């Protein structure tokens, strides 16, 4: 699927109830003038190390997938700096290798100056001499032009990111900037201790930085004025599947059903929803909330904000088998358990999806999923195992049907 860099925040019609317009307040394709008009100046001269406590008060978490506490990441990088001559590096990560994610491209295309503001703020708070924006080819010209248009962004270097699935993984980002090779590396030390050119390195998703730009302007309380205590603020989501591809900005802890309704999805025609992307989780029915924290029975983690709708007529096992085939092919083939384990998982899932009648298949798939966990330079195997585990659970009826040679979903029997 071609990510739609031009996908715009929800249509004007039904967004009022749920969606907000914080990050895209300057409108589509905002240049520096419309950006300044909508947001006003960024108070860079007021930003110092103590800004980290403002981020702490905001409760902001990373919007790239892991939802790690943003202030902790900043503080860890700041502390690693202590006593060293070389200041840290800050990277705005715009590589969304996830094929179903296009919110970061939309953000960089329409609101590049907000990301630049956030990068300058984070760089200032940490007194970082090195700042980078890592962006995919589709938005590279826009980002380059935005950086060039500003006098305060001369120290920001724009670095191209390849469109591979793992290129956005933090150690791959640092490797790409340092050596031009966008593959994850073994991490004996955390990036916060040693990353780009051996410096303490902070890698933030571009949306995280856009929120930081607004927190620097308006404070923590304003950020928290929407969302919930466990998930304050807003987040961007990329919607796809049985609806038009679109990017929405939604409040934290939003109801999945309300997000889908806002996007124009007929809930009666939804079989299941993949949340979080190819490393995410299938859920149904739809009475879940989207939040990085909370009980799994009621909450689904947004990851990088991917929401993919499987129509009532689709087969979840077949859909997952296709995704796992892709994920296995996207292995960097650096780490053995991933290089061998993912294709093995893919073969077993293919067999289930095709209706092979071997009752041992689901158990073998679960065993392989457990085997690859925690055994790689990045989380690609863990994420793949998580997706497969959720498919076995959510589509357990379908698994049982497939093992007896039937598929409950497709009229025409098997999908070979």
């Amino acid at each position, binding site marked *: 699927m071609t990510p739609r860099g031009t996908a715009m925040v929800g249509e004007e019609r039904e967004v009022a109830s749920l969606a907000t317009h914080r990050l895209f307040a300057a409108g589509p394709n905002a240049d520096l003038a419309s950006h300044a008009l909508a947001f006003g100046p960024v108070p860079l001269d007021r930003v110092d190390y103590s800004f980290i406590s403002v981020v702490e008060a905001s409760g902001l978490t990373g919007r790239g997938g892991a939802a790690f506490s943003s202030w902790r990441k900043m503080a860890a990088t700041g502390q690693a700096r202590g006593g060293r001559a070389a200041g840290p590096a800050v990277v705005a990560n715009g590589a969304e290798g996830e094929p179903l994610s296009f919110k970061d491209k939309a953000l960089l295309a329409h609101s590049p100056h907000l990301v630049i503001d956030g990068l300058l703020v984070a760089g200032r708070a940490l007194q970082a001499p090195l700042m980078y924006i890592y962006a995919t080819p589709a938005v590279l010209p826009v980002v380059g032009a935005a950086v060039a248009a500003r006098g305060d962004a001369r120290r920001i270097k724009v670095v191209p990111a390849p469109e591979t699935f793992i290129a956005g993984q933090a150690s791959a980002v640092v490797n790409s900037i340092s050596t031009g090779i966008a593959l994850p590396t*073994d991490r*004996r030390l955390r990036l916060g201790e040693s990353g780009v050119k051996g410096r303490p390195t902070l890698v933030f998703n571009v949306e995280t930085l856009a929120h930081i730009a607004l927190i620097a302007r308006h404070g923590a309380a304003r950020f928290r004025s929407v969302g919930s205590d466990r998930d304050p603020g807003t987040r961007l989501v990329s919607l796809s599947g049985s609806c038009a591809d679109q990017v929405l900005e939604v409040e934290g802890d939003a109801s999945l059903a309300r997000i889908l309704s806002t996007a124009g999805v007929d809930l009666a025609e939804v079989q299941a929803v993949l949340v979080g992307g190819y490393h995410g989780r299938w859920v149904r029915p739809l009475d879940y909330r989207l939040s990085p924290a909370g009980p799994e029975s009621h909450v689904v983690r947004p990851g990088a904000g991917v929401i993919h709708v499987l129509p009532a007529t689709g087969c979840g096992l077949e859909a997952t088998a296709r995704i796992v085939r892709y994920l296995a092919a996207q292995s960097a083939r650096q780490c053995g358990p991933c290089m061998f384990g993912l294709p093995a998982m893919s073969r077993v899932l293919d067999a289930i999806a095709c209706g092979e009648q071997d009752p041992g298949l689901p158990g073998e798939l679960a065993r392989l999923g457990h*085997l690859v966990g925690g*055994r*790689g330079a990045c989380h690609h195997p863990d994420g793949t195992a998580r997706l497969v585990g959720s498919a076995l659970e959510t589509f357990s009826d379908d698994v049982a049907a497939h093992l007896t040679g039937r598929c409950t979903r497709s009229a025409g029997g098997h999908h070979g």
Partner: protein
Amino acid sequence: MGDTLHIDWTSCDGRGLCTELLPQLLARDDWGYPLARHGDRTNVGIGAGDSQAARDAVALCPRLALSLKTAP
């Protein structure tokens, strides 16, 4: 956290020497790669009794994929 044996998965080739030196800590998976029997599978916890064998494993790994991290 005590001392750990760090496995660099990007270097490991599954030769299996470490699993012979530290059978109480490491099994082999379907493809021959080391599989920690308990706990963290990349930074494998080692007890005092394992430290000599762990040092041997680090020194002898043909792929230089192992290193020791000592507890601070």
